[in-house]
């Protein structure tokens, strides 16, 4: 079912989204390394392409629900960099006025409705967004991203069953990065593939190499088209690697050497670069895209650094619609 051909504009789009994620992640890590930022950060190194190709198959007003390791999804979906950087830094100029942080990035203008810090909790919520679209007939689809670790919590199973029962326009994108926190896939799950679980709910399930740009895009596009056509949800299992620790700075010596070697060989960034060259994009063209992105990263970091800190009055705002009295 996967196409091996792809429109050049779409390929450029996927490359740009991938590199926007990659350069942002690099920038965050450099800010953390140099002490310019001191926050919890879940690096997305290794998963850049999965979300870039997936989000390239969505429209801007389609809904997205993601998790604490979700910067790649948010950036690929289109969340503007300045407020994103400011939010991660806990500044007033952030998407959430500094009240959410990297684990709770929200940006409805680009469809990013929820980023949850609780594993698996996004799936039931995604069903509700999709239910609203189904009742309204607005043609939107909802994508929810989660890791392999999320497939062993009850919310996953309840949500999968309900989505299929009601044929909701939702796409469950499991980014199988082969580790749930510090526990390897084989040590937390006895089936070979997450996608086999789709069968248990009568749902369409597709397993794809998430680091293959064309396969990842066409697989997602097919699921999006099915959902928009009212044919119901799809579970996509996108195979990828989490190339660093659970959070930035965390030890990952528990990953065996052969896994590290396999991961390095499968790095999506050089692989995508080669695909671009194979499609007659020039080195200069690709370098120009990255240089432009780096300038945007520098500007976003500066915006975040200059944005004021939130004042204590923010604690009384947004608890309820009405402000809590001082």
């Amino acid at each position, binding site marked *: 079912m996967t196409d091996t051909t792809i429109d050049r504009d779409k390929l450029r789009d996927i490359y740009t989204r991938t590199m926007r994620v990659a350069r942002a992640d690099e920038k965050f890590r450099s800010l953390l390394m140099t002490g310019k930022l001191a926050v919890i950060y879940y690096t997305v190194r290794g998963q850049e392409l999965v979300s870039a190709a997936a989000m390239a198959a969505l429209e801007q007003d389609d809904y997205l629900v993601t998790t604490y390791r979700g910067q790649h999804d948010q950036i690929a979906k289109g969340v503007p960099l300045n407020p994103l950087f400011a939010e991660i830094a806990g500044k007033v100029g952030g998407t959430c006025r500094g009240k*959410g942080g990297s684990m709770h990035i929200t940006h409805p203008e680009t469809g990013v409705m929820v980023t949850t810090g*609780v594993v698996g*909790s996004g799936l*039931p919520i995604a069903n509700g967004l999709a239910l609203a679209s189904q009742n309204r007939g607005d043609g939107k689809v909802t994508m929810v991203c989660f890791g392999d670790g999320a497939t062993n919590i009850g919310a996953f199973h*309840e949500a999968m069953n309900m989505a299929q029962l009601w044929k909701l326009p939702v796409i469950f994108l499991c980014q199988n990065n082969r580790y749930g926190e510090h526990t390897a896939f084989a040590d937390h799950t006895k089936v070979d593939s997450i996608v086999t679980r789709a069968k248990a709910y009568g749902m369409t399930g597709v397993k794809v190499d998430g680091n293959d740009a064309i396969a990842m895009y066409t697989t997602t596009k097919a699921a999006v088209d099915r959902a928009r056509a009212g044919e119901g949800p799809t579970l996509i299992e996108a195979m990828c690697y989490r190339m660093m620790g659970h959070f930035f700075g965390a030890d990952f010596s528990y990953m065996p050497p052969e896994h590290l070697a396999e991961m390095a060989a499968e790095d999506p960034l050089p692989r995508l670069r080669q695909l671009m060259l194979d499609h007659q994009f020039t080195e200069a063209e690709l370098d120009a895209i990255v240089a432009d992105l780096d300038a945007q990263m520098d500007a976003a970091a500066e915006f975040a650094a200059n944005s004021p800190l939130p004042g204590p009055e923010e604690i009384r705002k947004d608890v309820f*619609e009405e402000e809590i009295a001082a």
Partner: protein
Amino acid sequence: MSQITMTQAINRAIDEAMAEDEGVILLGEDVAAKQGGGVFKISAGLTEKYGEHRVRATPISEQAIVGACVGAALAGFRPIAEIMLMNFVTVAMDQIVNHAAKLRFMSGGQTHVPLVIRTTTGVGVGFGGQHSDMLEAWFAHVAGLKIVTPSNAADAQGLMRAAIACNDPVIFIENILCYGLKSDDPGPGHIVPLGKAAIAREGSDCTIVTYGRTVLDALEIAGKLADEGISVEVIDLRTIAPYDEATVNASVEKTGRAVVLHEAVKQYGTGAEIASRLNERLFGKLKAPVTRIGGAFSAVPMANALEQAWIPNKDAIADAVRTAVNWKG
């Protein structure tokens, strides 16, 4: 004047809201016509009027029910989740506490969750330890949730309309024993604002602060104590959170004495918060210590004899008021 039961009143409030707004939907186990319109028939007739896409019978999946309602609310709907019994709400705590309550704040006000979670409970029908609890204090401890419980049919109708119209999540607690209670029919369109307590009976010697089914006990005791020459004021909070401190403080300032009464377990209950606030605000004006009466510190027992021993006892309520009135310091 014609009368209306609490069941009819809640049904009418939901019916009116659904007629006005396509975004009002109802999700819950057995709620659709095919399943009989809910275990307590609150949604009777609604599927026929509004369709199965708006009255959705769900699998037994409380996390998925509340989660779907959170998502639909984020998309601009005003969903109502029916969680059959309050103890089953515990299965959905993550969606309620980590998501419904906090998304407005964590998003910096970009999103909000206009959700009503209807649930029922109550001690006195022999349902035992997992079908009877009043867990309002669990939710009152979480910033971002509103908690409502009616004591009569007219309030149930008006509070339900206000809860559905509220732009924040509301936990709406119904008491099984109150479904058959009748009120004078308040008529269509009746709304009782959230956060406003009612003075259920005026008095001058002691205030009983309570809510839900125990308002009935308090009114009965107030009637009996009147024969002894003790004038009791009964405050029905109606909304447990946010707490109508102004109404309660005004009453206790007047009477100088207060007994806080609830069906929930006394330890760490809402009564502790209310008593504490009264002490903080009115210490010099109190003529007696504020006392609390609540359920016993055990699971709710099944056997009727035990259940009656567990539940706040009417004699104990009367004694608490007498003690306060006769307090010599």
